[in-house]
């Protein structure tokens, strides 16, 4: 059993990403979408918290939402990968369960 968690909020505005990070199980995937992609940026006040989880869970940012917000790949925290909508669908199919953190 593994879960795909989606987070669509900025971690600077809401506590959603923090709560998600505290409730994931090892081997799960967190996909950052919409304003959630800001959580993937290196050098922010949230970066340490996110970086600490990149070993236990797979953290991925949705590239279309990054591009919309002007975030280059080289700005991402090390260990965070990107994907597109096709990859989003694959992640949803591959994991047993999807959990949207709203």
């Amino acid at each position: 059993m593994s879960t795909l968690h989606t987070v669509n909020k900025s971690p600077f505005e809401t506590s959603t990403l923090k709560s998600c990070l505290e409730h994931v199980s090892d081997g799960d995937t967190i996909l950052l979408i919409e304003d959630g992609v800001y959580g993937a940026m290196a050098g922010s006040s949230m970066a340490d918290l996110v970086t600490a989880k990149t070993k236990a869970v797979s953290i991925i940012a949705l590239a279309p939402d990054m591009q919309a917000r002007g975030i280059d790949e080289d700005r991402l925290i090390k260990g965070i990968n990107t994907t597109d909508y096709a990859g989003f669908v694959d992640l949803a199919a591959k994991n047993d369960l999807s959990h949207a953190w709203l």
Partner: protein
Amino acid sequence: MSETVKKFLYVNRKAPYGTIYALESLEVVLIGAAFDQDVSLAFLDDGVFQLTKGQDTKEIGVKNFSPTYRALGDYEVTKLYVEKESLAERGLSADDLQELVWEDEDDDYAEKPSIRIIDRTEMAKLMANQDVVLSF
């Protein structure tokens, strides 16, 4: 469809009244109860505020839906998991929550508590062990 029994988890992370999500989530739970699935409700983060005692909405003109949680037992919705850490961060304890019960027909209709206080690790396990998660 009667053969499929799935584990449904309703995740409640939002406070009542400021937004409609808590109320409309409860409406889904009530309708969903008719489908004979294995239903659990999770209350964490600001969702724990949904269950507090003494809510009185007269002065804001919004309907007080907190009594409806007491009806959940009659709908055989009997597993309400409340996260201990979320309560503590908000200065709340289990005593601040409504007393919610259900009648166990396998145990001479004994009244049993519906609210189960669990810690964050248990909450994570609960979330991992579902077929469908509905969050609002």
